[in-house]
Structures are given as C-alpha cells and as structure tokens.
C-alpha cells in the first residue's frame, strides 16, 4: 500500500505538471494559440510525461530490488550480532538449531554454509516477524533481526519516496522550461505514445520468451539430477523423494511414459466424444437447420464452451464417474471411480463447441458453387455433404481437431478433479490413469522446496506440455491458414 502512496504522489505531480505546462504554453504564445506549433494540451502532456515516466521507472526498478537489499543487510546483521560466537549461549543455540533444523551439536552458525532450504527458512522467518505474521513463541533475538530489517525497509521506503518525488519534480521542471511556441510538443508526445504501443506489442513476445526460458531453465536443472532419457522413456513414475537423506526410498522414479500415456488415453476418449458430436452438429447446423433453429441452438452449444473447467471437473467427479462406476457394477465390470472414461468423456463435452464452431467455420467457407454443382447433378444433401463438402473442408477440419487435441492435452482442472493421481500404464479406459497436468498440479500445490527434483520435475513436465501443444498449434494453424487461402 505504501507503494501506492508514492505512485499517487507522482501522478499528482504529473497532473500539476500538465496544468502548468498548458498555462506556460498559452502564456508563451502571447495569447494567440495559433502561434504555437502544437496545441497547449500537448505541451501539458509533454510536461506530465517527463514528470511521470522517469519517476515511475525508478520506482518500478526499486520495488523488487529494495527487499533484497534489506534482506542482505538483515542477514549481515544476523551474522555479526546473533550468530556471533561471542554472543552465543546454549539456549540461543538450541533455539536457532530448532528454527533452522540444524544439527544439535553445531556450535557456530555460518550463513554461507547453510543449506538452501535453511537459508530460505531463515529469510521467511525474518520477513514474517517483520510483518507481524510469525507464529507465536519466537525468540527475542530473532525479533531484533526482524526489527532491524523492518527499520531498514522503512528508511529505504522514505528514500524511495524522496527519490521518486524528486525525479518527478526535476523532470517536470526541466520539461516546463523547454516549452516554447515553436517546440514540437505534439511530435514528442506522439513519439512517446508510439513507443508505449511498441512496448505493449512486445509483451506477447516477452511472455513467450518468459515461458520458454523459465521452463527451460528449471527443466535443465531437473535434467542435471535425472537423466533426460530416464525421464522420457522411464516406465515408472513416483516422485516421492525423501525429505531427509536417511529416509527409506529416498530416490523417486521420474519416468514420464505413464503420464504421457494417460494424457493421450484421456485425450483420445475426449476426441471420440467431441469429434463426432461436434462435427455432426456443425454439419446439421450449417446445411440442414432452419435459421430459427440455428439462432437458438448455436448459442446454447456455445454455453458449453463458456463453462469454467472447474465446473466440468466437479460434474465429472460428482455425477459422471459414479454413474459409470454404477453402470459398470451392474454389468459386472469393475470401473474405477476415477476412471479415464469419465474424465475423458466430460472433457469431450467441454470440447464439443470448440470442434463444432471450428468445423462450422470451415464448412461455411466451402464456396456455395460447390454445393450448387453437386445439387445441379441431382445429388441429395447428404451426398453433397459427404462427397463434396467434407472432402473439401477436410484440411480445415483436421486443423480444428488438432487444435482441440492440443486443448485436451493441456486441460487441467477436469483431470485434476476426476482422473487419478497414481501413475498407471494402461490402455484400459475403465482404470484410473494420471496425466501430465495432474502431476504438475500435485507436485506444485502445497508447500514445496524450490530445488528438489520433485518440484523441478513439474517444470520438466510443463516444458513437455508446452512443446507438445506448441507443435500441434503450429501445425494446426498452418493447415487452417492454407485451407483459408484456398478459398479466399
């Protein structure tokens, strides 16, 4: 909230700058606005930009940096005053050992020798105590460090406020002095606006870059622990690594094949539901349905696309899975209550409108002359559809189905709520299987250490997911575009 205060102050300065810049421009023009190169408002904008932009950039850079500096200072303080052997007594030592889960017999604490998780623990403790949200029963000496940290942050906040307001004021002042009738304020303001737009259009690129880099970086760290081939071709997945080295079964297994197989199985079931229903209903809508029917049914089908996936997940777990289990029981089949069939089928329902609207697009894009040519020869509607329209629309439909597959592979909530957690390499749709996305969620939800193979495995899976869907999307978009060009 304090940051908002700084930003608010800068914005107010910018507003004052706008008014003053405008007035100065009018004054310098000698009362005749036509003498100005740009309208007075542009001069106002010019001053306001100089007030706000540099100051805001400063604040934004400061924000992530400041807590880091404060934490470093606090840790130095901790090393010098708290962990100093001269000040160490047995009580403090045991409390610290408890806090940082050290070995009980350590006599001195050297921060540079702490494990990463202990280091993170210490930092979290300091941060929480400074914010007053730490659990009760903390040690007084830790409060000392926390107070130091809070004090440091307070000072740096005041500094930031002063610097932000100062830069804004100086910027506004300099710009204000430059106002003259022949200054091209409009061009400068427009240049700034254009620059802003260019920056905005690169956000998408930066996002992709961010995705690729963060996934790649974490995945590479994972592959330094687990060989890539074991991950890609291993048949056993059980990511339970031990918390302490001496625990039994400390090495988890990271063979992702069961996850890929599960993902494909569920996606396949989903496609078996979505493609026939979506395609046939699209054909009926495009070729047969009366326009009044279409006006009602189409939006209804599109509701299916607007329902959040978490709702589908709940539906699958509450209704569909028990239904399949009961049906299976009644005919003597054992169906898992987290069967791939239930998850896949509900996912299929979700994808129906996706398939049908994409198919509808490509079917209506087939030129009317094709239909007339066929009708003119005495073909019935279904013959025209099956022998002329569908073959002509096939590339587009394939592209749409590929996009739908990519969506099914990346779908998360339905499988998290309705598919299994345990890895199971099977092609039987009545059994529970797990998927890539389910594993990402289970690995990352809840408390986690960032460096363990378990956490990093999620990023490796994420990378696989990203690569798979990206390939599908690129192929699909390419196919669809080629198809469009054919009839444009």
């Amino acid at each position, binding site marked *: 909230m304090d940051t908002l205060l700084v930003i608010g102050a800068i914005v107010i300065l910018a507003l004052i700058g706008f008014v003053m810049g405008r007035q100065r421009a009018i004054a310098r023009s000698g009362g005749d606005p036509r003498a100005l190169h740009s309208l007075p408002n542009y001069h106002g904008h010019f001053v306001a930009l100089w007030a706000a932009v540099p100051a805001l950039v400063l604040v934004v850079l400061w924000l992530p940096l400041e807590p880091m500096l404060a934490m470093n200072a606090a840790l130095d303080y901790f090393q010098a005053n708290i962990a100093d052997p001269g000040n160490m007594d047995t009580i403090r030592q045991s409390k610290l050992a408890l806090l940082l889960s050290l070995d009980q017999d350590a006599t001195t604490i050297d921060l540079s020798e702490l494990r990463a998780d202990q280091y993170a623990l210490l930092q979290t403790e300091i941060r929480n105590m400074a914010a007053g949200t730490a659990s009760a029963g903390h040690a007084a000496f830790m409060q000392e460090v926390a107070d130091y940290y809070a004090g440091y942050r307070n000072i740096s906040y005041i500094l930031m406020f002063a610097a932000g307001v100062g830069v804004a004021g100086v910027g506004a002042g300099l710009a204000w002095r430059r106002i003259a009738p022949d200054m091209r304020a409009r061009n400068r303001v427009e240049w700034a606006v254009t620059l802003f737009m260019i920056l905005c259009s690169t956000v998408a690129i930066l996002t992709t870059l961010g995705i690729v880099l963060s996934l790649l970086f974490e995945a590479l760290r994972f592959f330094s622990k687990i060989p890539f081939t074991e991950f890609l071709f291993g048949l056993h997945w059980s990511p339970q690594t031990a918390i302490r080295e001496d625990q039994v079964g400390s090495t988890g297994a990271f063979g992702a094949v069961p996850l890929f197989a599960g993902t494909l199985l569920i996606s396949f079931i989903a496609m078996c539901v979505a493609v026939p229903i979506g395609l046939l209903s699209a054909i009926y809508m495009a070729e047969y349905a009366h326009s009044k029917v279409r006006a009602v049914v189409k939006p209804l089908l599109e509701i299916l696309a607007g329902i959040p996936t978490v709702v589908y997940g709940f539906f699958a777990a509450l209704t569909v899975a028990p239904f399949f289990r009961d049906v299976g029981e009644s005919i003597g089949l054992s169906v898992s209550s987290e069967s791939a069939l239930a998850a896949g089928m509900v996912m299929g329902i979700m994808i129906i409108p996706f398939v049908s609207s994409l198919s509808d697009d490509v079917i209506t894009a087939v030129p009317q002359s094709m239909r*007339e040519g066929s009708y*003119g020869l005495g*073909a019935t509607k279904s013959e025209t559809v099956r022998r*002329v329209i569908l073959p002509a629309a096939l590339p587009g439909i394939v592209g749409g189905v590929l996009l739908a597959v990519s969506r099914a592979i990346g779908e998360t909530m339905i499988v998290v709520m309705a598919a299994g957690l345990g890895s199971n390499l099977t092609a039987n749709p009545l059994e529970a299987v797990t998927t890539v996305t389910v594993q990402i969620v289970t690995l990352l939800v809840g408390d986690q250490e960032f460096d363990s193979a378990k956490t990093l495995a999620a990023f490796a899976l994420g990378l696989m997911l990203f690569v798979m869907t990206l390939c599908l999307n690129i192929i699909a978009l390419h196919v669809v575009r080629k198809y469009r060009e054919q009839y444009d």
Partner: protein
Amino acid sequence: MNVQTKDSEQDHGYPDTTVGKPILESDIKVAARDVSVFYGEKQAIKSVSLDVAANEVTAFIGPSGCGKSTFLRALNRMNDTIDICRVTGDIRLDGEDVYDRKVDVVQLRARVGMVFQKPNPFPKSIFENVAYGPRIHGLVSHKSELEEIVHSSLERAGLLNEVKDRLDTPGTGLSGGQQQRLCIARAIAVSPEVILMDEPCSALDPIATAKIEELIDELRANYTIVIVTHSMQQAARVSQRTAFFHLGNLVEMGDTETIFTNPEHRLTQGYITGRFG
C-alpha cells in the same frame, strides 16, 4: 395449338410475346406457364410463360438483374436450395409438372442438368469429377462401365484429348475453359435430357469461349439446351430461339433470327441495338 396465333394466345391467357417461327407441340420439351418467382417479398419473375423446344438451343438474354438466371434455376428447382425463394405457376418437363409433390427433385435434376457461371469443379481428380454423378445415382455397376461413361462424357465435352493422360490430377488444376468443359462433361455423365447453362462463358477468355460455343452446337443433337447469356453475339451464334427478359418480365420470344433482325417490341430493339443494357 401448334400455331400460336394472337387469338389463341389470348384465349389461353398467353401473354403477347411470341414472334416468328412457332414451336411444334411435339417438339416442346419444357413448358412454363405463369411462372412467378419470389425472393421473400420481392417478385423476381412476373408471370412468365414460354416453351423450350427439344434439341434446340434456347437463349435467355436481357440486362443484368432481369431475372433470366432466376428463371433458369426455376427449371430444375435449383431455387429450392434458397430458403426464402418461392415459385408459383406451372413448369412442365415432357408434360410432367416439375413442382408436383410426387416429382423427385433428385431425379429431376438428373434429367435437367446444369452448368454454372463460374466453373466449379469439385476439389477432386478429373476422373472423380465426372464419375461423381453416375456414382451417386447408381448408374453403373462395374468400374469398366464407369470408365466408359467418363471417357465418353469427356469426349463429348471435347476434353478427352487434352486430359486423357492425367485423369487422376485435380480438376481444379485445369485452365478456366477446360474447367468449364469439365463441368459440362460432369453434367453429361448422368445423361440428362436438358442442360441448363447459366452464363457458362462469362468467366472465360475469347478462345475458350469459342470452344464452348462450338461444343454447345454439337451437343444440340442429343440434348435440349437452355443458355443464359450476357452477350447478344453469343445468343445469335449458338441459339435457335431467343427469349428477351426485362425486369422480371418476358418481353418477347421467338426464333433467334427474327428476334435479332425484326423484333416486335421496342425494348427488345433497344437492347439488341445497344441503347441500354
């Protein structure tokens, strides 16, 4: 009713439109009486009556938007594919009402084939394009029979020599004129009795046009042909009979020579001498 004198026309409610050499009754292939076509509220064809003679080329001419294409499409019920379109009146093919409930539109269109303004080959091979009609209508039982039909149709359309080595290449890869002849071959393959052609040459260059015109003249021996055309020269070149449409009305109809040399109606005269259109 062989001789359509003015009196008999009046008796039968005929509009005063027919000039020149009359059609023998036994030669009438298609007879339209009081045909009106509506698009929603708009009346595109206003009570048109005319006869089409067998084994002749009948040309429909007239300025754009005069309804000649609409009327043509009414003859094989292509207008059925347009939801808001409604046809009233009486159209008979060999004396059989084509708008009768009992008449099967699929069968009708097999008897009355159609060639469109823009060549519209299906995105399939040349062979498949021609084989499409015989296949859907179940006209053949053996592959050899089908091949024979395809070959003879292509030959009659004058295309066989140009494409016989590449029957399995896409029909869309042909030139515009070849595509149009392919569409004609496609229509012929179901052995129709009447072929409707909706400005078949409007998208083609003069050389391709000449070939198609030549083809039309040859096809006349076996088929009844109705052609809508924009070009009066074309009508004069290929047709035996011409009907002139204006604003949804049939202004006059008669043998081509009479229409072009001695039209009765002022509008026809104006159009063919190029004063409007």
